[in-house]
């Protein structure tokens, strides 16, 4: 809960500064149990902070509240294409990759800013490696300043509280405590994004919440308690600037690769620890409306 609260406060501060300063905070979490309710509060069902439109909750009114105030953007209509990609690759293989003839990984750090051509080159090089995996990716187009969300998820329901009563008849034939309340956790790809562009400038301010999560399995809690889900999740929450058309690259070495669980696969962990590197690509491009108009006219002429 403390973590969730601190994140909420941080988000509030980010919005208050309104991209006024360079403040980058990123968070990568691997192997997080669903029982950590702060995860659910961060990105779970209905869990987006109010600052991002909040209120994606309720079954009938899903996504209802947060998008109520629709306002036109700047006088010059502007919209932005954004993309986020989560990937992982064997650390050893990443060391061999070269971009534009230069090593991608240098003694100081990796390349962090790529042009569109360099991005394509990096993706091409990564895809040539057998260990490369795209964990998830999402792109979305939105009017500048408007909150947006794209998600491709599995809604997993699990028992959250138990009644004090033991029940005897059941599939297992053993006495169990009765599960009397259930929670839902969305796992998959989730991208929540708000941009802030100054008309006439090619710099895009972005507030990004990106999550890739997966159900790794169900944990036997014993003592008649219902199994609990074990979720893996990589989250990134950041506030950054990017030039039009460019791609930011962030890397990190998780304890284990995405898809591996510390809780379910304890024997294998020492061998694989640190062997994978996470590579995160975030791109943005301002879409010129005039181009779209010309294209439409050309299409009609053709």
């Amino acid at each position, binding site marked *: 809960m403390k973590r969730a609260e601190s994140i909420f406060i941080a988000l509030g501060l980010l919005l208050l500064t309104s991209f006024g300063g360079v403040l980058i905070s990123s968070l990568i979490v691997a192997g997080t149990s669903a029982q950590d309710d702060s995860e659910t509060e961060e990105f779970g069902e209905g869990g987006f902070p109010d600052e991002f439109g909040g209120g994606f909750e*309720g*079954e009938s*009114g*899903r*996504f209802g509240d*947060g*998008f109520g105030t*629709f306002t*036109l953007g700047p006088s010059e209509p502007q919209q932005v294409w954004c993309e986020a990609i989560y990937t992982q690759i064997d650390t050893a293989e990443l060391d061999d990759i070269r971009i534009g003839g230069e090593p991608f990984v240098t003694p100081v750090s990796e390349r962090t800013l790529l042009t*569109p051509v360099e991005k394509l080159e990096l993706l091409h090089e990564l895809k040539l490696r057998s260990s490369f995996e*795209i*964990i*998830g*990716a*999402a792109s979305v*187009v*939105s*009017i500048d300043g*408007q909150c*947006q*969300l*794209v*998600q*491709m*998820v*599995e*809604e*997993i*329901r699990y*028992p959250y509280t138990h*009644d004090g*009563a033991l029940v*005897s*008849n059941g599939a297992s034939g053993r*006495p169990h405590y*009765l*599960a*009397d*309340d*259930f929670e839902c956790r969305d*796992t*998959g*790809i989730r991208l929540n994004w708000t941009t802030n562009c100054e008309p006439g400038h090619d710099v895009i301010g972005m507030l990004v919440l990106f999550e*890739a999560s*997966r*159900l*790794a*399995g*169900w944990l036997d809690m014993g003592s008649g308690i*219902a*199994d609990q889900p074990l979720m893996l999740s990589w989250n990134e929450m950041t506030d950054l600037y990017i030039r039009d058309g460019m791609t930011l690259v962030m890397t990190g070495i998780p304890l284990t690769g995405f898809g591996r669980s510390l809780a379910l696969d304890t024997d294998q962990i020492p061998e694989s620890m640190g062997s994978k590197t996470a590579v995160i690509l975030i*791109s943005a491009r301002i*879409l010129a*409306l005039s181009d779209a*108009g010309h*294209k*439409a006219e050309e*299409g*009609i002429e*053709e």
Partner: protein
Amino acid sequence: MKRIKLISSALALMLAGSVGGIMAWNLVTATGRAQDADDVFGEGFDDFGGFGGQENEPEEPCQVWCEVMFIQIDTADLDEIMARDGALITSTGEKAILTAQEKSELLRLLKQRQSFEFIGTASVISVSGQQALVQMVEEIRYPTEYDAVPLEETVPQDEDVVLYGYGGPPGMFDEREAGTRLNVTPTVSSKEDLITLVILPEASRLVGWRNVGGMGEDQPTFLAWNVVTTIYLRDATTCVMTGALTNPFGESAAMNPGKPPDKMGKKSAITLVSARILGLPANRAEEDAE
């Protein structure tokens, strides 16, 4: 076939477990209003002005056709399409907006691939400034609370412990709609052929029921693909949004807990959103008469 099986098994489970499921096709637009729209579609409808106001209506009344397509395809196939010269879909955002012809060409290229699959599509026509909703869904009810009633038997070695069982139906139910859903508010600018779309499409699917409590407390698992965004489109253009799926849409991790993870990102997701300003029917009638 797989989907039919899933739906059949889901329906059978619903009936067996006293869980109600209703297939529904709903269409609500400004041109054909439903009196109980708020009841059916929840509170979110009011947030966009609902069906009451005409404030955003331009001077020249017009209406807009809007369409959304959710597509899944093998990432390898998509990479091949992207690698072509003059590719109609890129990973750098240059082709985020397509003309009508480019959309047709892209769909033709995608459909040539065996892995191409429509997850859901929907289109709707609405007066500018008015919200429209079309949904083709299965309304699935599921229990959220269970009541226990005492059984006659007790545990012999500990007489203080009374065993309970399910003596009646679950205490409370909730409902989730699964299927294809398009909620859109198009607004046409009176100056240009510019359409502003507030759009909330969803494609979702029930993948099964899982016993999560060990005592028959079945809970449904859904897959959902949602986009919530506000975009500008010029008349007759299409917005393309891509992504990569951790698991293919249709595969459930919750229903296959023992299954080791396959290589992730093998499937890619494409969302197409199109809009076109429609001329008034009266004008068309005059043209026909001429």
